[in-house]
């Protein structure tokens, strides 16, 4: 059964209704999500880099909420209002494209992408503060000011850490000072691993023979978790570390002094500090 001429005349009202429902919901939901959900979005705000990523996530969420609502409102409106309740099942009217909607959709999505890509990249690169994402051995985005270098060494199945500014000592736990830029130089002694300090907003692949650099500046003391994010063998799932923490500058100095003392016998047997190491011995009896 074809729609009657009266029905066709009424049709544009559906569009208006959908638009009004969508606008009301979007105006209510978007600020609510930004106010109440955004502060809990990962990776948190424990570092400058994490906060940048959280801001990106918040903006993207605010942008995507009206779009998701438009789709949801349209689908549910169609389910409810356009449901054919008659007993006979005639052919539906021919579906025709609407050029205005198509053009609007293409222009709208292009504008969104044209904003999202440069803005996201700019924020992610962290101008002046460095990036929490890996940049390889010669980072483009480097923080201004003094940087504490910490090397992250992945090996099956544990991360260890070297502090070149303190004689190249090596530790099993990662401790960094607050309010200080830290440059993590990530490498591996065997297969590929991935150093993922979730709360710091830091993630970098650990690859043998490569020096992968990321930056973070912690804004407050507290613990954070470290995980390996690259499937690396039998105990990959166990390659996480708790007890990593951000501490005050004074506590860090006390801790590092103790590590230097503990490394007293060890330090002469560690290889000279380098950004990469050849895996030696390569295998049994090598």
């Amino acid at each position, binding site marked *: 059964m074809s729609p009657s001429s009266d029905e066709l005349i009424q049709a544009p009202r559906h569009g208006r209704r959908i638009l009004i429902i969508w606008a009301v919901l979007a105006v209510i939901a978007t600020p609510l999500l930004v106010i109440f959900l955004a502060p809990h979005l990962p990776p948190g705000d424990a570092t400058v880099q994490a906060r940048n990523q959280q801001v990106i996530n918040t903006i993207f969420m605010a942008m995507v909420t009206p779009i998701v609502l438009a789709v949801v409102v349209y689908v549910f409106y169609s389910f409810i209002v356009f449901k054919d309740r008659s007993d006979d099942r005639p052919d539906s009217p021919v579906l025709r494209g609407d050029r205005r909607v198509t053009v609007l959709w293409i222009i709208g999505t292009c504008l969104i992408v044209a904003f999202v890509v440069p803005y996201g990249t700019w924020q992610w690169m962290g101008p002046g503060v460095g990036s929490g994402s890996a940049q390889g051995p010669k980072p483009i985005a480097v923080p201004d000011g003094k940087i504490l270098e910490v090397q992250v060494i992945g090996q*099956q199945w544990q991360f260890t850490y070297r502090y070149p500014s303190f004689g190249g000592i090596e530790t099993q736990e990662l401790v960094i000072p607050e309010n200080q830029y830290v440059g993590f130089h990530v490498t591996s002694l*065997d297969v590929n691993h991935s150093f993922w300090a979730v709360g710091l907003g830091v993630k970098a692949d650990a690859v043998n023979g490569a020096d992968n650099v990321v930056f973070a500046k912690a804004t407050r003391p507290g613990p954070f978790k470290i995980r390996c994010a690259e499937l690396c063998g*039998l105990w990959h799932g166990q390659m996480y570390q708790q007890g990593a923490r951000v501490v005050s500058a004074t506590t860090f100095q006390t801790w590092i002094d103790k590590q230097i003392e503990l490394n007293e016998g060890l330090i002469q*047997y560690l290889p000279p500090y380098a950004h990469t190491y050849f895996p030696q011995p390569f*295998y049994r009896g090598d």
Partner: protein
Amino acid sequence: MVLLTVFVGAFVIYIAAFARQRPPSVTVTQGPNGEVTLVLQTVGSLGHGGHPDWPSFLVQQKDGSWEQSTIFNLPAHSTVHVKVLEYDTQTGLRNNFFAQPQGLVDNALTVDGETVTGADIIKTYEPSLAAHTWTVPGLGVSVPFVGVENDAPNQCTLAPCNTTQAHRTIEFIIKTGKPGHFRWQCIVPCAPGGFLFGNGGPMQTVGFMDGYVNVA
């Protein structure tokens, strides 16, 4: 159709059985005076079974016999005396950091009857001398085992080995805390040459160079 069902069923059972395969766990109980002793031996090659050329750990049972196992059940909140008969030769550590023992009572390691403590341990037993380690991150324990000289006479090639063969005796004490299920591994790349970075094969297999410490 029936044949297909039987085939698929058998395949599923085989896969499930394979996935559940585990070496036996060995329970270490307290002695009459409350002491707990875990006696292990490490061998360079088992000499039998599906992987005769793989290094492995064996654990001594109550009757003195040896069981190839890497799953040890220890009592909680106990002092555990660990004695290791090390029959394997030296490979050396890739990361010398692990040459320094961690989590030992009094930070003391006894090798062939001679006790060394603290920073003297690494000076006495250099990283290149290690044959294996027993590294239990969850318990904060890591102990390097100094290996037999590579040209030592009368080396063991068939497990279980006996003390008339070339070996080192390593002893140390650890304390278990609250109950838990902890994984352990050897961190020396001690797999035979065909494996990537020396870390494949036995280094990736529970029952050889990986296992669990069940503290209960």
